């Protein structure tokens, strides 16, 4: 939980709550109203493991009107970085209406993390942007910070008001390593280029997935039963929904981010 997160709960639904990670996108505040359609269809597939586990399979859709990209004037290093920087807000697949780059997770299941030697998450400064702009990892996993650009960047990763790491990287600097310390949402910035931004979500379990370009995700090895699903998107915010994982096979869900109540009524 970061200090600037805002949480509100809708009246009608008991499980639906929205919390928005606000980063100065104030224009979205208050107007953003998420409703969410959940359809759970139980699929059947053969079971191999000794302890029964299910898989959550689904797609996150965005059906609201287009949200304009953020455009920044580049005032420094514009010879290399370009005169303007464009930050995609929402990326929708034209056929499926699927939302790319949402993080789906199930947080209530206590399991020991089996793979302490997960490879480092590589975060590269490339062409005055962070690649990738969204990463997920587990607590203890290393982040490897690189700079491929011929200009100076500083990579400043923080959660709320606490810095995880803030390192200067001139051209051709060797990589910097830092392990993720706690679960939650890390913000990545460059104090020398205000328009650069990225996020890292850290978990204490393996039950998370980033939606692909069609909005699809898949979380395997879940114990059957009722679970709370969290969906996070950097522009659209956070949604919680409960699902019941079938004792065997795949549980299918489709979740929708409509943008606000009025748009839904039309």
């Amino acid at each position: 939980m970061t200090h600037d997160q805002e949480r509100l709960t809708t009246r009608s639904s008991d499980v639906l709550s929205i919390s928005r990670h606000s980063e100065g996108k104030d224009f979205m505040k208050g107007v953003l109203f998420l409703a969410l359609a959940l359809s759970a269809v139980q699929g059947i597939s053969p079971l191999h493991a000794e302890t029964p586990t299910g898989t959550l399979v689904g797609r996150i859709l965005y059906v609201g009107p287009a949200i304009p990209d953020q455009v920044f004037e580049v005032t420094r290093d514009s010879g290399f970085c370009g005169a303007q920087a464009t930050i995609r807000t929402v990326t929708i697949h034209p056929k499926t209406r699927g939302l790319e780059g949402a993080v789906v997770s199930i947080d209530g299941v206590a399991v020991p993390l089996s793979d302490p030697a997960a490879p480092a998450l590589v975060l590269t400064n490339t062409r005055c942007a962070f690649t990738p702009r969204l990463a997920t990892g587990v607590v203890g996993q290393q982040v490897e910070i690189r700079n491929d650009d011929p200009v100076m960047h500083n990579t400043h990763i923080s959660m709320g008001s606490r810095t995880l790491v803030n390192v200067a990287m001139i051209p051709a600097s060797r990589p910097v390593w830092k392990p993720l310390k706690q679960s939650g949402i890390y913000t990545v910035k460059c104090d020398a280029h205000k328009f650069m931004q990225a996020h890292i979500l850290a978990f204490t379990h393996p039950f998370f997935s980033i939606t692909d370009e069609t909005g699809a995700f898949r979380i395997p090895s879940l114990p059957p039963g009722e679970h709370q699903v969290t969906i996070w998107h950097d522009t659209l915010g956070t949604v919680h929904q409960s699902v019941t994982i079938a004792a065997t096979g795949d549980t299918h869900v489709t979740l929708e981010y409509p943008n606000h109540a009025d748009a839904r009524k039309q």
Partner: protein
Amino acid sequence: MHAKRLKYIAILIITGLCASTAQAVKPTTNRDSLREGRRIYEQACAWCHGTGGEGDGPAGWFIGRYSSPRPRNFAQDGYKFRSTGSGDLPTDQDLFTTITRGIPGVMPAYRALNERERWQVIAYLKSWNPAFEEEKPVPLTFPQAPAAPTEAAIHNGRNLYVKYDCRVCHGDNGEGDGPEATAGHLRDGNNLPIRATNLTDPSAWKNGASALDLFRTLTTGLDGTPMPSYANEFAGREEALWELVWYIQSLSDQQRK
């Protein structure tokens, strides 16, 4: 020339005095000492840092309301003045040094509290943040400052200042007027506007002005601010970092001509 030197020496002596406070023996923490710590805190610190330690005391209401720095929120903020790596918590000794020295311009020095009282208040303020239980901050080792700089070393330091783009924030001549600073882009961990320090005026520096202090500031960075750590950039090249330090010190030397 003479006056310039004297002033410079005076600064070194003052910062030397400040630094000599650091060798106190820390008593063990127990329930009684925490209760004492709380009593001292409520008298001496709550006014700014708030009774709950969240940086929202009655004076904190106007200090740092619209611009940095706001009094530290002990429940969740990171720390600026450390001997530890970027993002790490401070050691108890670091906190002791901060409280003893104070923070120029924003927080008084607490030499009036005896050493035992300072340790007690430290134990109390740490008790708000569970991270102090979970993480074990390890101080970095800092080398001794080498003997006085040569002109050539200061000249190299100037080149490093340019190469490492300090000017982006601190300006071409260290006056705190770099392009990102004047454009108002710099923000602290509370998203409040923050200024890049004027490197020509050591009296306003918060983390000390001795060569070793500057070496430490550049190695650790100041968490919760745009000021980054240069530890990785200078790993294994300590002599270059000293040159940069000497160049920074020479800026105030020159200003006093």
